């Protein structure tokens, strides 16, 4: 059984100045699922997330979130509506403590009302952050910083959390831990859209996935469908 889409993208074109980064991209994210966006470097994954977030705007096409058209809105409006992004490379506030980074996550009016509840939730998810809350972010290891980044995203009280390349540059054991966290986030009812290059792992964890190649969605389906797809097997599993 399928739940209703909370995010629906129809035929968007997105440009970086004169360079077209996305071509007629359509995508749906359904309530409560974990959906993955798979693709190589420069395929347009981060561009797509930034467009959903309002950092970039499509020249054509529509983006609706919970039934409302959002493609012309600014990031601060979209974040307040319940879409948050954990950016690639984490982008923590380097000079701030862990706690201050988390508090910045609850900046929007909607998130501020739920700050205490969300802080408790983040500390339950990452007990380590509770112990380290007064540590300055830039002095932490990559894996710990990724936890802060995901935690900061959850502080925004999101309906949809988008996580960009969370495993990039991290040790495999930490990657496993973070993927487990993803399942916990999903279990709490937050819908997850995540971007990955690690195809094998992604198709194990996600409910559904989209494959994006040079700015176009080339394939979509449930994770098991994609695992069985011959082109995917050839391209990503080497068999």
């Amino acid at each position: 059984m399928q739940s209703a889409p909370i995010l629906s993208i129809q035929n968007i074109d997105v440009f970086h100045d004169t360079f077209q980064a996305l071509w007629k991209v359509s995508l749906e994210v359904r309530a409560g699922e974990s959906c993955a966006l798979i693709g190589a470097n420069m395929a347009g994954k981060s561009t797509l997330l930034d467009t959903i977030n309002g950092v970039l705007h499509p020249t054509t096409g529509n983006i609706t979130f919970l039934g409302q058209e959002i493609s012309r809105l600014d990031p601060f409006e979209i974040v307040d509506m319940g879409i948050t992004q954990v950016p690639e490379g984490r982008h923590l506030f380097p000079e701030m403590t862990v706690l201050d980074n988390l508090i910045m996550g609850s900046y929007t009016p909607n998130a501020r009302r739920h700050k205490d509840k969300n802080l408790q939730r983040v500390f339950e998810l990452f007990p380590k952050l509770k112990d380290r809350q007064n540590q300055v972010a830039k002095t932490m290891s990559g894996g710990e910083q990724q936890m802060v980044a995901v935690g900061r995203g959850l502080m925004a009280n999101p309906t949809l959390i988008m996580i960009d390349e969370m495993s990039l540059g991290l040790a495999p054991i930490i990657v496993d831990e973070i993927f487990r966290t993803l399942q916990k986030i999903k279990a709490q009812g937050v819908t997850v859209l995540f971007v990955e290059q690690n195809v094998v792992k992604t198709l194990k964890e996600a409910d559904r996935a989209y494959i994006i190649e040079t700015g176009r969605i080339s394939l979509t389906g449930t994770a098991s469908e994609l695992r069985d797809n011959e082109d995917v097997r050839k391209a990503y599993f080497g068999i």
Partner: protein
Amino acid sequence: MGSGELLTPILMGVMLGGLYALSALGLSMVFGVMRLINLAHGDLVVLASYASYAVMTLLGINPILGLLITVPFMFILGILIQKYLMSKAVTIGTEAPLIIAFGLSLVIQNANQIMWSPQSRGINTVYSQASFHLFGRQLPMIYLLDFLGGIVVMLLLHGFLKWTYMGRAISATAQDTRASKLMGINTKRIYYWAFGIAMISAAVAGTFLGMTFPFTPTSGTTFLTIAFGTVIIGGLGSMLGTFLGGIILGLVQTLSAHFFGANTQMLTVYLIILIILAFRPQGLFGR
């Protein structure tokens, strides 16, 4: 000359430095948040000196009390400058806002010239002639007020940046603009605030500088250089560094006047700034 002789210029330098730090804070904040080198900063400080002069001569209000008028005036002016002159320019690169700031500097200088004539002015108050005693030295009261004014406003700003959502959002935008947008911070509005707050520091600095030294419509160049020097010595982004940078520049100025005569003091300041730029461009306390 005994070492006791040095105590007077050292005390005066430290006190003056507190005020220099405050004037540099505005320059540092606008650069930190928007990566904009506000070449008009010194002229805006002088504009605040004239505003306080006007408040005193036209309304007969003590300029320190008059800050209740000059501070909001400069704050609003800062927001208007950001909104109507800089807002578009800061999004397309660093050159355009730099040139706009330079143009603004010329406009303010010439406007002050027309309104107030090139003649030198001073904000003379009851404090101008007063003195106080510290470690057995008699020192001008105005230097103590400079220091207190600088410290109080810096501490208030520090508290604002650390303990309020808006203040934290300003720091966040300075540290990572992209992440700030993704946190739902309206960075455009943060830019207004940053410029407005920078102008609060300019308003207080301009008022006290105007009570300490005579000023003309072109004094902005000197004030800009002092603010630059303070930021260069202190390194960007650290309020403590800015504070120490201001004190070092204050000391350079008063000690140089003490040893080499009053007319060398600014030359020494410029030389020190150049030497530090050449050998430690990240600043003495910068990372």
